[in-house]
C-alpha cells in the first residue's frame, strides 16, 4: 500500500471537507479537546470512553464497534481520515483498531491536530451530526495484534521494538516524562527488544519522516524488516504509531501491535525482564 493511500496532508483534507464519502474523525484521550474545537465536519471518538472496554482491559467488541460507528454516521465504504492530539498517537491507535476490525479505507492526517493548529487552519466548535448508518465490522484480524504469549515466544526470535523513551526502556522512568512517576509495575523492558522511540519517526511538527529516513532508522537499530516484528510501548497507543510506520508506510509484512504493552508485561509473574540501555539476552 502506498504512502498516499494511508496518509493525507492538510491540503488534501481541506479539498475533501465536503466530500460525503470522506469522514474526518478526531480521536483524543482528552475528553474536552473535541468539544472545544475540531476540523469542520469531523466527528469525535474518545480513546477512553469509546474505545476501551468499560469492564475488562480490552478493545471493545465487534458488536460494540458496530454500534459506535453506526451512531457516528460512518459507513463501511467511507474513507475514514483520523487525526488527533499527541502527535496522532490516539488517531494511530484508532487506525490500528479499525484495521483490526477490517475497515477498508482508513488514513491518517499527517501531523494531526498539532500541525493543523500550528498552521493556523480553521477549527470549529459546533457539533457534527451525521445520519446513523448500519456499520458491519469484520472479526478481529489477529495478524495485527500480539498477545502476551506471542511476545514471550518472540523473545530472541522475532523483532521486538520498544517505542517508549530511552529512560522508560532502561527502567529509569516508569511513565512518560509529562506524567507523574507513580505507577506500580516493575521498570525495564522485554529482553532482546530494540529501543526505537516513536518520536524518532516524526518531525517536530508531528508529520512522519520520509520512508527512506524511516527505513534507515529501523535498519540502523538492527531491526530486520524481513522478519516478524512486534511493537509495544506502555499501553499500546504509541506503539500503534510505530505499527503504522512499519506496516503501512514501510510495508513490513508481519508486524503486530502488542496493546497489552508494558503495563501488562511489567506486571506478569515470572517473565524475564531486562534493565538498562541494552536489549539484554533471551
Amino acid at each position, binding site marked *: 500500500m502506498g504512502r498516499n493511500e494511508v496518509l493525507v496532508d492538510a491540503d488534501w483534507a481541506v479539498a475533501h471537507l465536503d466530500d460525503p464519502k470522506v469522514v474526518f474523525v478526531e480521536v483524543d484521550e482528552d475528553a474536552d479537546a473535541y468539544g472545544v474545537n475540531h476540523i469542520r465536519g469531523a466527528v469525535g471518538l474518545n480513546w477512553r470512553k469509546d474505545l476501551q472496554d468499560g469492564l475488562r*482491559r480490552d478493545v471493545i467488541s465487534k458488536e460494540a464497534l458496530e454500534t459506535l460507528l453506526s451512531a457516528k454516521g460512518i459507513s463501511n465504504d467511507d474513507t475514514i481520515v483520523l487525526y488527533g492530539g*499527541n502527535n496522532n498517537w490516539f488517531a494511530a491507535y484508532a487506525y490500528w483498531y479499525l484495521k483490526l476490525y477490517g475497515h477498508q479505507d482508513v488514513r491518517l492526517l499527517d501531523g494531526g491536530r498539532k500541525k493543523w*493548529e*500550528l498552521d493556523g487552519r480553521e477549527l470549529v466548535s459546533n457539533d457534527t451530526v451525521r445520519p446513523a448508518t448500519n456499520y458491519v465490522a469484520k472479526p478481529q484480524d489477529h495478524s495485527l495484534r500480539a498477545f502476551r504469549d506471542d511476545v514471550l515466544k518472540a523473545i530472541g526470535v522475532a523483532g521486538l521494538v520498544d517505542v517508549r*523513551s530511552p529512560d522508560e526502556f532502561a527502567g529509569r522512568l516508569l511513565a512518560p*516524562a509529562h506524567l*507523574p*512517576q507513580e505507577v506500580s509495575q516493575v521498570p525495564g523492558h522485554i529482553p532482546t527488544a530494540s529501543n526505537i522511540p516513536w*518520536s524518532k519517526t516524526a518531525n517536530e*511538527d508531528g508529520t512522519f519522516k520520509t520512508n527512506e529516513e524511516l527505513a534507515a532508522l529501523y535498519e540502523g537499530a538492527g531491526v530486520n524488516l524481513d522478519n516478524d516484528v512486534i511493537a509495544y510501548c506502555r499501553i499500546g497507543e504509541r506503539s500503534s504509531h510505530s505499527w503504522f510506520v512499519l506496516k503501512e508506510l514501510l510495508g513490513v509484512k508481519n508486524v503486530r501491535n502488542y496493546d497489552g504493552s508494558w503495563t501488562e508485561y511489567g506486571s506478569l509473574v515470572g517473565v524475564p525482564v531486562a534493565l538498562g540501555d541494552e536489549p539484554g539476552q533471551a
Partner: protein
Amino acid sequence: MSSCGAVVGGVSLEHVDVSRQAVIQGVVSKSDGPAHVGYVRLHDRNDEFVAEVPVSAVGEFRFFAAAGEWNVVALIPGGVARTKVQASLGEIVDIDVLVS
C-alpha cells in the same frame, strides 16, 4: 489504567509527591501576551525528544522529569523558542518562554 496522553498545560500537582521528581513548568508567551495555542516539547541533554504537552489557554505547561539538563522547545503558530533548564529532584523550575 492511566493513559500516556498529554494533558493541556500539564498534569496538576495535586496528590503528586514532588520530592521524588523534578518539575519543569512555566508559561509560553508571544509579544502580545500568553500563547493560547501551542505545544511545548521536553528534549534531553542530547536534544532527543522526551515528552510534549499542549499549552493551556493561558500558555502554561508542566513536565515531570529526572534531575539534569533539559531543553524546552516551545512551538506556536509562526515561531519556535528553545530554552535550556537545569532540574533537580524535589524542586520546581519555573521558566518563562518568549517566542518572538
